[in-house]
């Protein structure tokens, strides 16, 4: 897609990374907005991985982009999961789980990961900034 078409489509097309994180861990016991990712000016954020580092999280995770909830009340399954046992409530992004794609925001949009109560295990995630 050309740069012009990209701009018309609101930044759609191939995501080109300018920064990629290593795995970031959030200690168990975290609550509220546990992570806020703000892309560089004119850039976008891409969430490439999100999972529990241990057992299934009993807390409920919500992901927002630009203040809008795009995933609500998901239980994070442990890294390495290839089968989601109960299906509807559980979530893993990346980490070899085959069916859940990365999530990215628009230009200058902030991505937040929230939880309703204290997390019951370490949460891990990876992300990229780019355009």
């Amino acid at each position, binding site marked *: 897609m050309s740069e012009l078409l990209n701009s018309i489509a609101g930044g759609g097309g191939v995501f080109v990374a*300018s*920064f990629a*994180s290593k795995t*970031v861990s*959030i*200690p*168990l*016991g*975290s609550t*509220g*907005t*546990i*992570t*806020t*990712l*703000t*892309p*560089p*000016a004119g*850039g976008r*954020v891409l969430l490439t991985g999100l999972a529990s580092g241990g057992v299934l999280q009993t807390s409920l995770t919500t992901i927002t982009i630009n203040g809008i909830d795009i995933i609500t009340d998901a239980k994070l399954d442990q890294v390495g999961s290839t089968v989601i046992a109960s299906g509807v409530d559980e979530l893993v992004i990346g980490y070899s789980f085959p069916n859940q794609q990365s999530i990215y925001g628009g230009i200058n949009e902030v991505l937040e990961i929230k939880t309703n109560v204290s997390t019951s295990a370490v949460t891990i995630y990876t*992300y990229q*900034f780019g355009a």
Partner: protein
Amino acid sequence: MQKLIDGLWVECVYEDLIDGDLYKISVGGGWQQQTFITPIIEEAV
């Protein structure tokens, strides 16, 4: 690294953080922001 003190972002180092501090790290031209919680270290039995 910066942490939020009385509504202002102030330069700090990791050792300055205490439980509940909101802090952010500059990476790749953007920011990664979290609340600090002392990690629980499990001791071998």
